[in-house]
């Protein structure tokens, strides 16, 4: 062991009460940082999960229809009054090609064609307006994992099968195997068998969404062979914007990421992160000030010993390192204790906030990166906090302190 480590450890051991207090202070600080990070990360992940549980990361659709001037006589000056046009369900031209293009965009991990439109679902005399979603079960399941959110039955859309939400099932009194009539554009209507009942965690979605085979939706919505949107899943949902831009550029269509459709959620997430970072920053500052003040006191208390050590031939650099090492040790050990404390708090909190079924209301996100970051930040903080006291110790004039 180098002499400076030996001395640093002995100095820390000597000031037992002081050392315990500062370890406690750093531990509480690091604990707050770990707890807050775990909580906010977990909370945000669960919020995003709830939102993205029934939503694609990126939706590709044709541009909105606009009225165009049909005819412009040569040389004529026209006064044009543009009226907004009602938006029909439009088909994406050459959608197979668009699908391939979208799949080739970096970051995109799945793509599924869908046909979306309005329809009426009826059973007996009861009729409900629903949102018809024509999909291929296999490809769509990779966009929104319906198969994992089924209450009953299967996510299977073969022939004339439909998968409905539990809200609609309740309203129409439907069970798996029952028949359901869906009416679309004009006189187009068909009868489907309920294959599964899902719960996507959103009341509106559970009441309105009806999944039917792609072909059936095309037929009901009068969109033969076409699809109205292509939905994408990206690797990192936080980078959905970039993927959307790339897709839009490659396909010439409109690509909207979930962040555009959920501005408020994103703003909420960002401000949550910002306030959490702010709190963590000030906690770190407080911890740094605590370490620095304890070390300054320790330098003052030990000025004679430091003086005599210097008189005995311990060089200025070594004296400095003795105190820097103390700062780093305080940061390291304190944050190790604090990580345990923060993790304990987070788990306790997760246990207290439970759903009625006993599962955690939201998962706290405790991972190795969090602990490593907290430890590294605290150690560096300790080092930085020790710079001024160490410099002070190094400046001590041995002659002054030993004759005093």
């Amino acid at each position, binding site marked *: 062991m180098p*002499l400076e480590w030996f001395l640093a450890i*002995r100095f820390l*051991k000597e000031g037992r009460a002081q050392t315990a207090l500062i370890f406690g202070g750093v531990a509480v600080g690091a604990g707050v940082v770990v707890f807050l990070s775990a909580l906010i990360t977990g909370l945000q992940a669960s919020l995003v999960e709830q939102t993205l549980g029934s939503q694609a990361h990126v939706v590709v659709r044709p541009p909105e229809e606009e009225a165009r001037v049909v005819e412009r006589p040569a040389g004529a000056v026209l006064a044009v009054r543009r009226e907004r046009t009602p938006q029909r369900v439009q088909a994406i031209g050459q959608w197979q090609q668009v699908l391939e293009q979208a799949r080739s965009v970096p970051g995109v991990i799945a793509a599924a064609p869908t046909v979306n439109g309005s329809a009426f679902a009826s059973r007996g005399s009861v009729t409900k307006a629903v949102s018809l979603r024509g999909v291929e079960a296999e490809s769509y399941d990779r966009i929104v994992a319906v198969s994992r959110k089924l209450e009953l039955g299967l996510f299977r859309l073969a022939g004339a099968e439909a998968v409905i939400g539990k809200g609609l099932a309740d309203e129409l009194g439907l069970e798996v195997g029952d028949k359901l009539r869906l009416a679309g554009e004009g006189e187009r209507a068909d009868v489907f068998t309920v294959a599964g009942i899902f719960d996507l965690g959103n009341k509106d979605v559970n009441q309105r969404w009806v999944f039917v085979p792609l072909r059936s939706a095309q037929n009901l919505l009068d969109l033969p062979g076409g699809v109205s949107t292509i939905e994408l899943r990206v690797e990192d949902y936080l980078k959905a914007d970039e993927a959307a831009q790339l897709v839009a550029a490659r396909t010439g269509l409109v690509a909207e990421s979930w962040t555009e459709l959920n501005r408020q959620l994103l703003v909420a997430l960002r401000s949550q992160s910002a306030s959490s970072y702010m709190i963590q920053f000030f906690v770190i500052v407080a911890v740094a000030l605590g370490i620095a003040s304890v070390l300054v006191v320790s330098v003052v208390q030990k000025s004679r010993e430091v003086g*005599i050590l*210097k008189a005995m*031939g311990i060089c200025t650099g*070594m004296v400095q390192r003795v105190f820097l090492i103390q700062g780093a040790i305080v940061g390291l050990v304190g944050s190790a204790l604090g990580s345990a404390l923060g993790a304990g708090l987070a788990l306790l909190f997760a246990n207290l906030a439970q759903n009625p079924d006993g599962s955690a209301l939201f998962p706290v996100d405790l991972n190795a990166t969090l602990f490593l970051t907290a430890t590294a930040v605290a150690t560096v903080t300790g080092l930085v906090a020790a710079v001024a006291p160490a410099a002070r110790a190094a400046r001590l004039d041995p002659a002054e302190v*030993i004759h005093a």
Partner: protein
Amino acid sequence: MPEPLLELKEVVKDYGTPPLVTRALRGVDLSVTPGEFAALIGPSGSGKTTLLNVIGLLHKPTSGRMTLAGTDTTRLDDDGLTRFRARTLGFVFQFHHLVPALTALENIVVPMWSLQGRRDESMRRRALELLDAVGLAHKADSRATALSGGQAQRVAIARALANRPALVLADEPTGNLDTASADEVFGLLRRVNRELGTTFLIVTHDPRLAQRTDRVVEIVDGRIVSDEAVATARDQPRPVSAKA
């Protein structure tokens, strides 16, 4: 006349910045030969502590030359001075200034460790020998805080000797001790001087203590005003009685 161990020529030391400059040493010439056991006396404010700081390489002289163990110390930089000090000088102070966080033994090991860069078993053995020499081998593993004043000062002497210094500087080494402990500590310094041939320069304001050394250098107002060998009955006949 052997080569002097320590030689000061016209050493001047100023403190403060203009216009408030205090001249603490006003041209000191001093020469100490190896094996001497000398006392430096003077009233407070006379500059004896300043002289000790200069000789101890803790402060640099403003002007003048100083040679210690054959090295012109005015030419060394800070780190060079620190290393040279560790090799050549031992310090004993009025207050022992042992590091309380360490045991008696560790206090003695630290200067050796610091000088040689890494610890080895020989340092522990040497520290034990030194503790044995000052009669405190049984206190090796006691915390510095658990020692009495006299014991702590003896450990401090052992620490001063750790790196086999050519010159030991002692500043009021017995000033803080009761008479019995003071006698014991002084006797120890004397014994080290006789047995190991270590040179001592002892600062004191106690004339009785000074009379028990071999040479008394008196400094007043930053100048050496007298420098006399002390005649003791045992070492050499008193000049007066010799004449008689």
